[in-house]
């Protein structure tokens, strides 16, 4: 576990940054991937000061599916003989009214949230199968547990991602690489800042601590914060006949 190289996809998000700090302080190597390279370089400097023996920055665009093969090869090359631990932390969540006004956003949402994640994980999968150790942890969402009028395009992309991970989990299980789905509730990031209707918001640091804990013990599916599990069980149990009338 100690020689894992953490590949952080979507490393500009506060949760990804906090996870990266967590593993950097425990002396892991980190590869930061995302679009805003200036921002990633600042995070890389921070991680190096906090104890990461080496930090690399790679350009990565989830929606540019054509680039994923080369990207996966480059990651494998950077990791060398070390097993990869992969964190998928990117997503795109526009406001539902904006999607309703501009249906072109449906494609952008699904591409960035589902297709990009499934694609890059698929390109990485052969390498994950062949390595000794490593892990995959993907940030899903409670929004994927049930489609709600307020957020169903994003929610359906996350639901697809959850299903994809079930399959990937079975595939990589044969190679002893755990795949952890984290179903996130509200976390205090730019995604929730100033959004009406958010409650019991967790800090990125506490969410990151839980994510690393679940990933390192090889959990399958976990809610973060954990109280979302009974809450979403309740939400899922509401009959569709009633649910469709609710304004949630």
């Amino acid at each position, binding site marked *: 576990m100690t020689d894992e190289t953490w590949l952080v996809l979507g490393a500009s998000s506060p949760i990804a940054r906090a996870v990266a700090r967590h593993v950097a302080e425990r002396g892991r190597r980190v590869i930061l991937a995302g679009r805003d390279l200036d921002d990633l370089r*600042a995070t890389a400097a*921070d991680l190096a000061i906090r104890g990461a023996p080496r930090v690399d920055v790679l350009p990565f665009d989830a929606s540019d599916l054509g680039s994923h093969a080369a990207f996966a090869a480059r990651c494998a090359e950077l990791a060398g003989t070390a097993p990869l631990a992969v964190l998928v932390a990117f997503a795109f969540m526009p406001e539902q009214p904006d999607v309703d006004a501009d249906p072109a956003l449906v494609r952008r949402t699904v591409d960035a949230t589902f297709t990009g994640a499934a694609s890059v994980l698929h390109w990485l999968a052969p390498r994950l199968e062949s390595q000794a150790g490593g892990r995959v942890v993907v940030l899903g969402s409670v929004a994927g547990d049930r489609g709600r009028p307020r957020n169903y395009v994003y929610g359906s992309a996350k639901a697809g991602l959850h299903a994809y991970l079930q399959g990937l989990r079975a595939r990589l299980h044969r190679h002893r690489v755990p795949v952890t789905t984290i179903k996130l509730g509200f976390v205090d990031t730019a995604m929730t*800042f*100033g959004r009406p209707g958010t409650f019991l918001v967790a800090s990125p*640091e506490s969410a990151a601590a839980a994510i690393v804990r679940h990933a390192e013990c090889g959990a399958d599916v976990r809610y973060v914060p954990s109280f979302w599990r009974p809450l979403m069980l309740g939400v899922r149990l509401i009959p569709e006949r009633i649910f469709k009338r609710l304004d949630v």
Partner: protein
Amino acid sequence: MPGIARLTLRGFGRTNSVTVPAVRPEREHALVAAVRDGAPDGVLAHGGGRSYGDCALVKDGTAVLTRRLDRLLDFDAASGEVVCEAGVTMGEVLRVLGPRGFFPPACPGSARVTIGGAIANDVHGKDQARAGSFGHHVRWIDLVLASGEVVRVSRDARPELFEATIGGVGLTGVVLRACVTLAAAPSTAIAARARRIAHLDELLIALDQAARTSPYLVALIDGTARGDAFGRGILETAEPAPDGTGTWLPSSRVPEVGAIPSVPFLPSAIAGWNAWRLRRVSEAGRSRTLAAGRFFFPLEASHVYTHLRMHELHAVFPESDAGKGLRRVLEAVGDSEVVPLLVVVKRFGRPGLGHLSFAIPGHSLVIDLPAGAGARELLDRVEGTVAEHGGRIYLAKDSTLSAERFARMYPRLPALRRVLSEIDPRGVFRSELAARLRVREASA
């Protein structure tokens, strides 16, 4: 609009609050954009929220929360120079770089003070007499101006803007990054000695002596003592311990809540508490080694105390005054019906760099007064006394000073005004404090 939240921001004393649109950039270019976008309506940076009064609050404008820009960008273990973003806290510097042999310089009493806030208020610690204020340790600042332009200011590059920004209470711009020289530390522990002080005269002598031998010194005074015991207390002197570990930092999980409702403080209870604290230090004195965080950040030790609604009177009197102003203020507080919860005296040695820097060589006095009946009247009287004795009030703590007294206390105000009228003629950067003290206008 996404990304903009209406938030209620409070001063740390819980006496002042505003509900304003706030943005919380997570990337540097977003901070620059936030300043540019907010400029037409006014902007003020808000960091750790540890300023007591209204200096980090803006009513007409956008609050730019800097806490998410909290990365360390460069660190030189040989020189102790660290480059970091504005939202890095003192506690984080200690936690990450303490074990590598460095303490935050001029470290204030709260771990949550940000580097940006430390610059804007030119904060100081228990080592002011020797180490000066925070500004003395700042090599350069990357400052976001009203236009959105980012400029690097230092003692050599645009020194006039550098001196206006150190202690400039956020009126020159928003700190994006800064380079700070940290204080070398042999371990992450502090060796402290405490001894009893019988009365005020002894305190003043003891402080002068201690300043010659110890880097850190602070005196806790029993504000309720009268007669021969007037000014009695405990003098604590300290230095970095040669060895020892433990940085100790407060849990970040304790939620920030509004304010604990005002409770009446019985004078006898506070007097009893003070007497008990005094007795804890034996006649012979007390020596101990403690984790640096426990020593630096007393404010993090009690979550109840820091949620009380209070005014923190913080004044400094010049050396030439030789304790006369200090005595008069303590007497005035003793004669009033307001019970002082905490009284702290420190020795200052180096004047601050900035135009509105608080520190001047002399004695600093902190008195925590519960908000409510009589507090404002007492503060008004005491502020008059401070002005008469050539002293000044710390803007980071203030919520009651008048514009006239402010202008009298800060003789370099005209120099700051000249800089502000040049770099921010439209008054983009503003605060409740700046409006109350008429920082921008020449007084009529």
